[in-house]
């Protein structure tokens, strides 16, 4: 068979344009297929990283998904707040090791502003039980101090000491890309904040968040009512300390327990809370259930990309088969010079197989290239960390499938060549 290999290569080179285009089609569809699989896995990993250190998320009773999304991912808004008193009762529960109260609602250039306490910097854990690290500066201590997530600082070019004005509400003026603010959009311009700390990158939503004290959130809304400044009434920053800045309500509370085993009991305890209707979710479980529901959509996406691949492979078979018409004479010549019908079968099958393998290889390479080039952009815009790595087991399995199907499909032109060479003998009927 080895004497055929140089022939096969020269023959393929002779038809490099059609075969090259087919190869590109296969490579692109392999990139798509692998890309979808990789984004799927990376999204799961990425999301899981963000919830890893929290035993329970407690909030006003609503939908668990909503609570998960705004408390952990800062997406959407709380339909109800829970009272500060309840948050404190919860914190005092003997099974509870720590709590981190969260208040969301305001934003800055599209990034969410999170009101919290010092406990956030002490107890929050992400990824593999990692604590937050400050790349520069210190946690907030003054009332109008703000600590930036790594992405916020990087994207907006903020440094320690820079002043920042928060916008009211989550629509938060323009997205960070568009550099203009909605005219007339309500801002807390009278009470600017100062950057006192910048967190190290975590690969979680923390990177895209601005952190201020709960009291600061109270302070900037002292002279506000119903989402707008009270006309003709303004309290200058210097005077806010004269008011009671203790928070009245929070959006959610992250809870860490002393013993993991208590988590289910604690969840029931929260659900039976007397003072107000509350709800506790296990973030990891909520996420798993979310993924289970999304599995259908994921499968559809994978199926569509598999279909695209199937189309490319069908294209390959069509191209090789169409070429066979022109190559009938070539096959007869080879036959006259000693090639067995089986050799011709191998010649054609090898061609399709080689193009598939090359396509799979180029596609993987392309994906790696795209990940390297677009990874930082995707992380910046979507908070999704794409891993730049060799194909993992699942991806290798997909690749194996691609090559197997491609090889199988290539048997068709091989078989056709075999039949033709038997029927034609030395005199092809073209």
């Amino acid at each position: 068979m080895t004497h055929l290999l140089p022939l096969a290569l020269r023959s393929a080179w002779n038809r490099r344009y059609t075969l090259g285009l087919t190869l590109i089609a296969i490579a692109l569809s392999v990139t798509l297929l692998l890309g979808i699989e990789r984004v799927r896995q990376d999204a799961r990993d990425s999301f899981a990283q963000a919830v890893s250190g929290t035993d329970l998320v407690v909030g006003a009773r609503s939908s668990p998904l909503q609570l998960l999304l705004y408390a952990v991912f800062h997406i959407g808004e709380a339909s109800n707040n829970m009272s500060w008193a309840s948050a404190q009762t919860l914190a005092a529960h003997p099974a509870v090791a720590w709590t981190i109260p969260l208040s969301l609602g305001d934003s800055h250039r599209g990034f969410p502003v999170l009101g919290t306490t010092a406990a956030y910097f002490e107890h929050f854990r992400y990824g593999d039980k990692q604590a937050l690290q400050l790349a520069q500066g210190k946690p907030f201590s003054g009332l109008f101090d703000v600590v930036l997530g790594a992405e916020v600082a990087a994207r907006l070019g903020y440094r320690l000491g820079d002043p920042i004005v928060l916008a009211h509400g989550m629509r938060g003026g323009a997205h960070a890309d568009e550099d203009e603010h909605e005219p007339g959009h309500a801002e807390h311009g009278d009470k600017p904040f100062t950057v006192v700390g910048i967190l190290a990158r975590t690969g979680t939503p923390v990177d895209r968040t601005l952190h201020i004290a709960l009291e600061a959130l109270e302070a900037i809304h002292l002279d506000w009512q119903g989402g707008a400044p009270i006309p003709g009434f303004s309290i200058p920053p210097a005077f806010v300390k004269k008011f009671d800045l203790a928070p009245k309500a929070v959006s959610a509370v992250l809870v860490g327990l002393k013993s993991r085993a208590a988590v289910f009991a604690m969840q029931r305890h929260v659900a039976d809370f007397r003072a107000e209707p509350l709800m506790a979710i296990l973030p990891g479980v909520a996420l798993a259930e979310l993924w289970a529901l999304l599995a259908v959509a994921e499968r559809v996406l994978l199926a569509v990309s598999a279909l695209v691949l199937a189309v490319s492979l069908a294209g390959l078979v069509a191209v090789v088969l169409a070429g066979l018409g022109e190559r009938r004479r070539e096959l007869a010549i080879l036959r006259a010079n000693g090639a067995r019908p089986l050799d011709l079968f191998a010649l054609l099958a090898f061609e399709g197989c080689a193009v598939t393998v090359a396509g799979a290889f180029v596609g993987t390479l392309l994906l790696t290239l795209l990940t390297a080039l677009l990874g930082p952009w995707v992380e910046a815009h979507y908070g999704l960390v794409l891993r730049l790595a060799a194909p993992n087991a699942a991806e290798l399995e997909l690749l194996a499938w691609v090559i197997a199907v491609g090889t199988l499909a290539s048997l068709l032109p091989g078989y056709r060549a075999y039949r033709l060479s038997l029927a034609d003998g030395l005199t092809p009927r073209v």
Partner: protein
Amino acid sequence: MQFKSLTLIALLIAAPAYARHDHTPHHAHVHGVAKLDVAVDGGTLNLRLESPLEGLLGFERVPRNDRERAAVAEMRNKLGDAGKLFVPTTAAQCTLKSVQIEAPALDAKSASANPEHADLDADFLFTCAQPSKLTGVDVRLFQVFPNMRRIDARVVSGKGQKATRLSTKMRFLSW
């Protein structure tokens, strides 16, 4: 903003279904469907089973005759012999420490309000000599209680939290 597009898709697809699939403790009572909460903490393995009585016993009220009383006793025996219901990774060398069963509906004194449907709650405690080897539990409830079709399991362990749906085909709970 972050995760915007991804999550938007997620929300659109999932939200309606998710609202129904709600893991608050006071869950819907669905025959054949049980809940299993598993907590792994150091050398202890806690399992809490919540199941409609129907799946375990066939009826959900105070037993009325000797046959039904015998059925209740048999069920209690089966649950008490929990080493046959839950088989943790052998290498972890786990032993059953205690079983607590709560089924007020079976008790004439406390039987009450909802005469139609009633649940049974059972807590199982194992302790394991080699906790680092503990990676899962083979859940054999389906064989012992053929009326049970599905178990919605939640696990918290050192590796995090997860949720899995167990069935006769997929009865190994790993973490």
